[in-house]
């Protein structure tokens, strides 16, 4: 078997050196400065630990200590560094765990406003990109079909010739960045090279919101919702809980507003074309075509004004005309929402998604003003870069000037325009017309393949930088490791082009900061900033705003046309595009964790699917897995159908970011490239697309069988959901808190023998289903912490995915609805992992005692004892055990293995594995506590899933400590166990879900007793 472990041992065998050479081209390797080489050895080191246990005495191992050990470094003790990563112009704070110089895990920085200690799945997975062997590994100059290996000096000498004088003919294409240093250097660059063009573009852009505020207030502003104050939240095609730079604070604030209290809980209204995780949380959800959202919002406005006498600010008077024509048949959605909003003026807010036009955002702004949201549930801050033209405009102009030959040197600093620019612009063709093209990127991607220079970019964990959070808080970015592939950051490139002979990101950032920390001693301030990762109290002040009547009036007609947009029909449906929940705009396509992560809604992996409403599927004769050809504007592509109840009729949803051709070994040819249908005219909603069955059918790699299912199974499933995922309406709960306990009944649980007593620390967990929104963050956290392998598309189809946490997604339909007549359905999530049964069925069936109970109540799994009978998995009522059917680590390059957590055994083939409450974290804390003779404090041990949960849905602690938070939660009236009737005594319990439907009683009737003398209720153990 292969096992991984590294204390301060670092290896240096011939095989290993070979491996290094394979990973890194010779020239690169030799040119590295000694320091780097040492770093190298350090990080590459323990890969020798992969020598298999073949003989009685396994192969000779070497211990290669430092020659000079860094200050205060104790080998084998992990350290955490605060840094940040910039995604789409907003910086997210990280705490990165580093083990003997190897960054191994991304966690959130509790001090950072957009992180609060949590991280979305995507950013956690970004650690894989650091070690990705597919990354660009050296400067390449492509000339006459030849590739030449170059050095940074070669490049800068070349660049200094090209980018010179006034910079005429030079254009810089940059992805948007929140970094003050980049901004500063950009300013300098513009001053130095007055004639050079600077273009900023993001495929997933929030410009619509920015422009919307510009319409409403005359200048671009940034919207800052404050959901913790909101009692009524209305989302129109908005997904604030995932598709937002501040998703984490937003969803956490929402969760706080959903905690049961005498005052009741907030209410969420959502109107959207396809399910989002926000939609999954909605109390009232309306599936509506993307093109009909303006109409719906306008109808709401009309309802408010006409039937509820809402006075809009007088600047918006002319604007009103635009929505006079609104006629959406929202059913009782509009009246209900209108009434609710009016009832909660000042404590309600309307949010519109970035996929909607600027005018719609303007309308929302007007309504928010009218409802008194501004200042309480929503504030504005000045847009950081008011000067820039919007992304779409910018790239369109650039392409124009490229075609006209104005541009002769194009520097692409990040981004992948060849792949993600609007299709109608023909960026690739334009690029061919530019004589000198440079691409700085992590990967040798679609764009760089067409550029003459490819420059390896330093990963954010390899380089210095800074950034600003969504609310403006200043954030630092520090390297944890020397660039593995000799890459450099945008900052260093810019600095160099501005004539710095030896550009240092570190110095540039310090220079910028020296401006920011006005008062006091800079060094201390700098040290603190580095330590905290943020500079406190640097968030932007709320902007003073005043509606701008003229620009509103001007936008009126545009809004009117949007409102009047034609309804899609099944035979000419609309296609709604969205950033993928996993690979985002495509930048994480080569990230195996993201590719294998089951999508929150479709549970599909390794694909982008076409989400179709059941009714539309019937009309078009489509069924699960059918490959259909979607065509629009001359382009066409194929997508597999995934029927999703709750999808808007005649509206097909799919995601961007797939079908890459130069992503790398993982991401190439996964899914299909929907950017090809995306034009500057219709970035998000493509009307009247053609749909044709190809007749081919594929197996979707879903981790959960979707709702297409035989009648018997469908019925049984629906019967079970209500007891598995208990849910009731807040009013009913407040009236009778025991309602949850009465949802399931079972005979008294009698045991054949005396119950085992558990003294001392007893670990337990509580998962709040009222907080969980199915965002998948915990799944990736667990994967990173526990060295969980990726198995690939085929194996997922074979139902062999390895994730220890499975987020069960169920569609809740009305009783009596059959599988064929499902239309709409609510979504409920249940994170399911090993619940550490006290009477664990898995234990007694293992013939070699490879899984057994520990004194502290954990259902331990001993990998090195397991012989792989898989009996435990069969006998696990929750099927949370995962089996290594093959050696899934065999394919990994040594450099990828550097990410492994040395505190957790890497399982090889033929071994069963499962959640152990992160026993390595428990042991670490326990040993530490015992070493200094103190008890373990409550909350000191935090499993990876709980650590990263954006909504704090997961709580872990000592059940025997009456003061611990977990004990309180277990005493909560909402707490219940799954399948307790089996007398398995689960250590993990769930807290029931609460809904807040208008006048709904939300289920939770008293279940019929399973047994004559029914005394015990759901709550147990």
């Amino acid at each position: 078997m292969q096992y991984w472990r590294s204390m301060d041992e670092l290896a240096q065998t011939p095989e290993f050196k070979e491996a290094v050479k394979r990973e890194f081209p010779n020239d690169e390797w030799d040119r590295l400065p000694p320091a780097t080489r040492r770093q190298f050895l350090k990080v590459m080191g323990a890969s020798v630990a992969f020598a298999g246990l073949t003989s009685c005495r396994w192969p000779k191992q070497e211990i290669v200590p430092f020659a000079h050990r860094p200050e205060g470094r104790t080998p084998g003790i992990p350290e955490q560094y605060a840094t940040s990563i910039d995604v789409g112009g907003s910086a997210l704070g990280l705490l990165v765990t580093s083990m003997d110089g190897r960054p191994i895990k991304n966690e959130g920085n509790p001090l950072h406003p957009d992180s609060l200690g949590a991280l979305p799945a995507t950013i956690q997975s970004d650690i894989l990109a650091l070690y990705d062997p597919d990354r660009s590994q050296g400067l390449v100059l492509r000339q006459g079909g030849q590739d030449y290996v170059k050095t940074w000096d070669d490049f800068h000498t070349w660049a200094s010739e090209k980018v010179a004088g006034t910079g005429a003919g030079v254009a810089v294409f940059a992805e948007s960045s929140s970094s003050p240093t980049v901004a500063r250097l950009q300013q300098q660059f513009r001053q130095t090279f007055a004639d050079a063009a600077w273009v900023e573009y993001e495929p997933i852009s929030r410009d619509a919101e920015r422009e919307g505020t510009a319409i409403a207030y005359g200048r671009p502003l940034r919207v800052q919702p404050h959901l913790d104050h909101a009692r009524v939240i209305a989302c129109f095609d908005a997904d604030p809980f995932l598709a937002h730079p501040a998703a984490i604070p937003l969803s956490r604030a929402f969760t706080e507003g959903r905690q049961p209290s005498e005052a009741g809980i907030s209410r969420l209204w959502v109107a959207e074309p396809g399910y989002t995780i926000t939609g999954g949380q909605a109390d009232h959800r309306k599936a509506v075509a993307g093109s009909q959202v303006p109409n719906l919002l306008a109808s709401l406005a009309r309802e408010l004004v006409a039937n509820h006498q809402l006075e809009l600010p007088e600047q918006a008077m002319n604007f009103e005309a635009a929505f006079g024509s609104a006629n959406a048949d929202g059913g009782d959605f509009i009246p209900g929402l209108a009434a609710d909003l009016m009832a909660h003026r000042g404590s309600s807010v309307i949010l519109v998604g970035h996929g909607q036009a600027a005018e719609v955002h303007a309308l929302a702004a007007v309504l928010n003003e009218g409802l008194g949201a501004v200042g309480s549930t929503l504030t504005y801050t000045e847009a950081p870069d008011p000067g820039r033209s919007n992304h779409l405009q910018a790239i369109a102009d650039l392409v124009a000037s490229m075609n006209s030959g104005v541009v002769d040197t194009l520097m692409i600093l990040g981004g992948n325009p060849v792949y993600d620019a609007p299709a109608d612009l023909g960026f690739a063709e334009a690029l061919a017309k530019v004589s000198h093209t440079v691409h700085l990127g992590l990967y040798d991607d679609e764009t760089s393949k067409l550029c003459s220079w490819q420059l390896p970019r330093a990963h954010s964990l390899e380089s210095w930088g800074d950034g600003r959070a969504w609310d403006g808080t200043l954030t630092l970015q520090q390297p944890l490791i020397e660039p593995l592939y000799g890459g450099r950051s945008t900052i260093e490139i810019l600095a160099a082009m501005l004539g710095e002979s030896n550009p240092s990101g570190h110095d540039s950032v310090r220079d910028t900061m020296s401006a920011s920390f006005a008062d006091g001693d800079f060094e201390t301030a700098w040290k603190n900033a580095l330590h905290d990762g943020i500079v406190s109290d640097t968030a932007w002040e709320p902007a003073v705003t005043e509606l701008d009547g003229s620009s509103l009036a001007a936008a009126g007609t545009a809004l009117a046309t949007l409102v009047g947009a034609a309804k899609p029909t099944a035979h000419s449906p609309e296609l709604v595009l969205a950033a993928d929940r996993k690979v985002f705009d495509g930048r994480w396509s080569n990230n195996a964790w993201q590719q294998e992560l089951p999508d929150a809604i479709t549970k599909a992996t390794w694909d982008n699917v076409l989400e179709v409403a059941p009714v539309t599927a019937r009309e078009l004769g489509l069924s699960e897995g059918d490959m259909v050809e979607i065509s629009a504007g001359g382009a066409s592509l194929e997508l597999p159908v995934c029927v999703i109840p709750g999808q808007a009729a005649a509206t097909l949803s799919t995601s961007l970011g797939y079908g890459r051709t130069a992503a790398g070994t993982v991401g190439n040819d996964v899914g299909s490239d929907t950017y090809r249908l995306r034009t500057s005219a219709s970035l998000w909603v493509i009307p009247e697309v053609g749909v044709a069955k190809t007749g081919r059918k594929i197996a979707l790699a879903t981790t959960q069988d979707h709702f297409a299912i035989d009648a018997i199974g469908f019925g049984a499933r629906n019967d079970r959901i209500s007891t598995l995922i208990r849910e009731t309406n807040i009013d009913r709960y407040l009236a009778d808190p025991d309602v949850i306990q009465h949802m399931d009944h079972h005979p008294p649980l009698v045991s054949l023998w005396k119950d085992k007593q558990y003294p001392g620390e007893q670990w337990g967990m509580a998962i709040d289903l009222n907080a969980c929104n199915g965002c998948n963050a915990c799944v990736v956290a667990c994967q990173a912490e526990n060295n969980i392998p990726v198995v690939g598309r085929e194996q997922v189809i074979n139902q062999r995915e390895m994730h220890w946490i499975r987020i069960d997604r169920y569609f809740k339909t009305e009783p009596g609805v059959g599988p064929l007549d499902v239309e709409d359905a609510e979504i409920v999530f249940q994170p399911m992992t090993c619940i550490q049964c006290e009477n664990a069925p898995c234990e007694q069936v293992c013939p070699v005692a490879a899984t057994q109970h520990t004194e502290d109540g954990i259902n331990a799994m001993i990998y090195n004892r397991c012989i792989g009978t898989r009996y435990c998995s069969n006998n696990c009522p929750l099927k949370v055990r995962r089996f290594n059917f093959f050696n899934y680590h065999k394919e990994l390059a040594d450099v990828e293995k550097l990410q492994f957590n040395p505190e957790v055994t890497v399982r090889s083939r033929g071994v069963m594995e499962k959640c152990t409450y992160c026993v390595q974290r428990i042991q670490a804390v326990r040993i530490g506590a015992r070493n200094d003779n103190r008890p373990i404090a409550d909350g000191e041990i935090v499993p990876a899933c709980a650590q990263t949960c954006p909504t704090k849905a997961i709580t872990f602690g000592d059940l025997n400590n009456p003061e611990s938070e977990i004990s309180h939660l277990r005493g909560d009236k909402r707490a219940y166990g799954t399948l307790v009737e089996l007398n398995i005594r689960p250590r993990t319990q769930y807290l029931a879900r609460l809904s807040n439907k208008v006048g709904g009683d939300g289920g939770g009737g008293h279940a019929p007793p399973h047994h004559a003398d029914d005394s015990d209720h759901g709550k147990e153990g």
Partner: protein
Amino acid sequence: MTADTTSRTNPNDGAELFGLVASFDKIDEFLEAVTKVRDAGFSKWDTHTPFVVHGLDAAMGIKPTKLPFLVFGAGLTGCTAGIALQWFTNAVDYPFLISGKPIFSLPANIPVAFEMTILFAAISALVGMLAFNGLPQLSHPLHSSRLMKRATDDKFLISIEAADPKFELVKTHELLESLGPLAVEVVEV
């Protein structure tokens, strides 16, 4: 072959005798003969039949075998060993906490104990039988007798060893002849 068999064997050619063998092919006559030989008071004699002939034991006056006691003993040993093994391994040497069950509880241990009982007993039955019978014994004077060849086919034989105190070659030979056998053979060591 009957006649010449007797004639060819030379009673006094010096070679050491094992004994005499007479063969019959009718069960009734055979059993008659057996009772006669028994009554003649021989002790070192035996009969050889292709299959179990009912009543032969009585006719020869063979006492019941002790085998059952051996097997019973072995069975008990197996059972004890089975339970002891499970008790020692799971309750004494390294007690595991499994599914909140008791460290040692008989119900779970019955199957293994039972199987061990049967195993020990069964093996002892075969081994015991062979041991009591002095088998395997590949080399035995009787194997060089021609008549014996049919003892595993269709003939019924009586063999009287020379070692028997009552054995006198001529007399015994006559006795056997008097029983009307198909043939009588002198078997040498």
